[in-house]
């Protein structure tokens, strides 16, 4: 995600990479307190990844406290009565572990990667902070500053991220997907320890979490350990969020974002269903295939026709996340080449959409995408972490992880006519939002003018 120039061209590799385990390879149990535990054994190397997924994220947040899920994720490293701030990370480090956490729209997750015998270390610590977090005001006062720095780093000083944030806020009116995961700065400035405490009490409980372990472990032993460490935790009464289903869009929305930048940037998003919301269960898969036709690597239409052929785009991407909790947008994004404007690029993308609506995709193109999907399913077996991510994502939004095994078959069943149908039904102006980054001059010529001649003092 840090290689920004490649962001768009890497859509495919992500979009066509869902998990590959055979269905019978997943073992699952639910503890009496409601905690789900899912295990996938992979005995290639003597390691394991353990992840704890909570059903909470920015799409659970209300106005005024945006970013609270993510700030709480930071605070989860700040101590319990048993273990003071920082102790969690020190213990994991001393056990040779790598750890981190991440917050998305639909989930908050914590993970450790360790040598296989250390699973109990991970469970002991995670169980402790699931119910016993301290949330001290003095720790919060420091950590909220860190999060504000993170926002400056990732969003405020990143013109494309800034555009993305405005795009999302324009595309959604009443759906909580309008909020940035990191939160609006004003909300961060006004967040209080009590907001976090309330959030923690509301969502952090065994019956609102799933533990996913992938690696060189035995499922029955994992279940036993889970029972030992998480079993004593009390469940909470979890009140589901209100649906907050996005209202129907009634026409194109356009946003301009002016920011100091060198290059323009275009984002287009069409409202589409996801698996959870689709009335026709094949439609999300047809949209996924559509994304592959346009952006399935170097041989797909965007690379072939927009980057190499007409050279209107320096880069162009298309993609879609069908595993979201609520209805989402199907996105297009790109940067025009030197000789072209953002308007040219938008027109080129619209022409590509029109072609999908008018002509069925060739059998050869579909076969090529399927070949890539099938191979990618095998390749991803090389990454236990990624497999755990997929399982956790699906389970946390309320989908059956079996869908991961059905992915190839469901995609393979999609016909050219179905792709045409979803293009006609969803890629239409009434559900479209367009955001454009309008580059403003940098105050100076930073990269050149201000730099003194370097190296003059070298000892050579």
């Amino acid at each position, binding site marked *: *995600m*840090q*290689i920004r*120039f490649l962001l768009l061209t*890497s*859509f495919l590799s992500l979009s066509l990479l869902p998990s590959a385990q055979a269905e019978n390879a997943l073992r699952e149990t639910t503890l009496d307190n409601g905690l789900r535990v899912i295990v996938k054994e992979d005995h*290639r*190397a*003597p390691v394991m990844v353990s992840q704890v997924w909570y059903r909470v994220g920015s799409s659970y947040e209300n106005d005024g406290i945006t970013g609270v899920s993510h700030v709480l994720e*930071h605070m989860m490293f700040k101590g319990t009565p048993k273990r003071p701030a*920082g102790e969690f990370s020190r213990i994991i*480090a001393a*056990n*040779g572990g790598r750890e981190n956490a*991440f*917050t998305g729209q639909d989930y908050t997750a914590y993970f450790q990667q360790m040598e296989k015998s250390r699973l109990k270390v991970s469970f002991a610590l995670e169980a402790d902070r699931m119910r016993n977090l301290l949330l001290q005001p003095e720790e919060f006062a*420091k*950590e909220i500053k*860190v999060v504000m*720095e993170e926002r*400056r*780093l990732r969003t*405020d*000083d*990143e013109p494309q*991220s800034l555009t*993305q944030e405005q795009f999302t806020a324009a595309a959604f009116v009443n759906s909580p997907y309008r909020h940035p*995961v990191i939160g609006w700065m004003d909300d961060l400035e006004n967040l209080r320890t009590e907001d976090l405490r309330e959030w923690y009490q509301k969502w952090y409980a065994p019956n609102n979490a799933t533990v996913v372990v992938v690696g060189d472990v035995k499922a029955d032993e994992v279940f036993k350990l889970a029972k030992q460490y998480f079993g004593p935790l009390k469940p909470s009464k979890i009140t589901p969020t209100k649906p907050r289903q996005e209202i129907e869009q009634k026409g194109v929305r356009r946003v301009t974002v002016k920011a100091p930048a*060198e*290059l323009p940037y275009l984002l287009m*998003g069409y409202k589409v269903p996801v698996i959870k919301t689709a009335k026709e269960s094949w439609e999300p898969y047809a949209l996924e295939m559509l994304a592959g036709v346009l952006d399935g690597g*170097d041989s797909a239409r965007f*690379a*072939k026709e927009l980057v*190499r052929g007409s050279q209107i785009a320096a880069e162009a991407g*298309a*993609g*879609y*996340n069908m595993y979201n909790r609520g209805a*989402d947008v*199907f*996105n297009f994004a790109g940067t025009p*080449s030197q000789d072209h404007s953002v308007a040219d690029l938008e027109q080129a993308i619209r022409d590509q959409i029109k072609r999908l609506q008018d002509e069925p995709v060739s059998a050869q193109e579909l076969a090529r995408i399927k*070949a*890539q999907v*099938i*191979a990618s399913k*095998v*390749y991803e077996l*090389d990454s*236990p972490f990624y497999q755990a991510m997929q399982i956790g994502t699906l389970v946390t939004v309320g989908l059956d992880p079996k869908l991961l095994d059905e992915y190839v078959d469901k995609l393979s069943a999609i016909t050219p006519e179905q792709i045409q149908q979803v293009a006609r039904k969803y890629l239409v102006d009434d559900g479209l939002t367009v955001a454009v980054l309008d*580059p403003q001059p940098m105050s*100076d010529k*930073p*990269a050149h003018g201000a*730099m003194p001649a*370097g190296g*003059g003092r*070298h*000892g050579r």
Partner: protein
Amino acid sequence: MAANRNTINFMTIQPRKQRPMFNNARKIAVFAVVAVFSLLPAPFASAAPAIQQWQTANGARVYFVPAPELPIVDVRIMFDAGGARNGGKGGLAQLTTSLLNDGAGDLNADQIAERFGDLGAQFATAAELDSATVSLRSLRKPEVLQPALDTLALILRQPTFPQDAFERVRKRMLIGLRQQQQSPDAIADKAFDKAMYGDHPYGAPPLGTEESLNALTRDDAVNHHSRYYVARNAVVAIVGALDRAQAQALADTLVGKLPEGESAPALPKVSDLTASQAINIEYPSAQTHILSGQPGMSRNDPDYFALYVGNHTLGGSGLVSRLSEEVREKRGLSYSAYSYFMPMRDRGPFTMGLQTRSDQADEALKVMRDTLRTFVEKGPTAKELEASKKNITGGFPLRIDTNKKIVDYIGMIGFYNMPLNYLDTFIAKVDAITLPQIQDAFKRRVQPDKMVTVVVGRSAAQK
């Protein structure tokens, strides 16, 4: 499953901490897709895979680890043909690498892309300062693997560098340069390298400059390829469900018909800095980005383990490192604060970095400097050293837990001519490091009063 939208989400998903410099394509050019070994924090040990090694008839060195568990094959072909071999023509190595799959033999770019696409094979290239790497991941079954290898061999041996593709890729690189100019990180990196390495090839921006890119010709790429993409300048790393004979056949298919050629000559030696240097670059960002450092260590450095283990305490171990503790945990000044050595053919940079709200930049820089000074004077405590060793050695299995990681490691071992038992001895070497060795190595190798410091952000007057 994640697509466009989700990729973008990934930018808004907030990992709690990261090591931006390791993720940040610091030495990777903008087009690079593959994981690049020198960005891995370091080497590994214990139940290390047994590496088989041989040489093709025309002189390419091959490194192979059988991995029968999954029906896939990963290959890296690394040439000593990175940005350090630009020969004053900035951006040439990157441009050459990027053009490889834009035409080869009778095939044009579309046909090459379709061949790999039809097979589900993944092709990628990357140019760093030291190396130019071509990677392939393919299914093992012969009806897929063989045509994928044949196509790759053609790309390595007979790229055609079509003039129109040359112009297009150059234009994309020019866009890449402008993209860097809207990133305070990238601006800081460039200034940092230039100040640290001066006229040494490591000091030149890997993507070149507008001027250097505009001066490149197709012939430059053709010549760069014919000089450096030769067997004696190549290392092949293979991990997959193959036996030795199959791996040998694979290597012969890929590089057996390359001209023998010559290995690249030694690089000029990196010089020490003789004084500290401060570079302030005005930039309209909310945060000020700070980098501070000096030439560090090489991949085969005699002080490698002392510096690596020592730096783990200083700034190499995420949140529990001293820099992170002082800058982030105690003061909330930055989302990330870190230090690392990037071992390269010659001495790659030792770098400390952070980003902070501009009005706090002076304070943060002072904390960073004080932390380094104290560390160089006194070294880690016994407890810190113990914790570092436990983390490094205990986490060793994680370094080699996927085929991808193993192929990156054996590529590195081959490329830098490291001992074949490097992985087997890694844990023992880390465990053997003592406090005095770290103190001695840091005192000799890190001079806090001779650092290059780059500050990119709003100047005091504008804060």
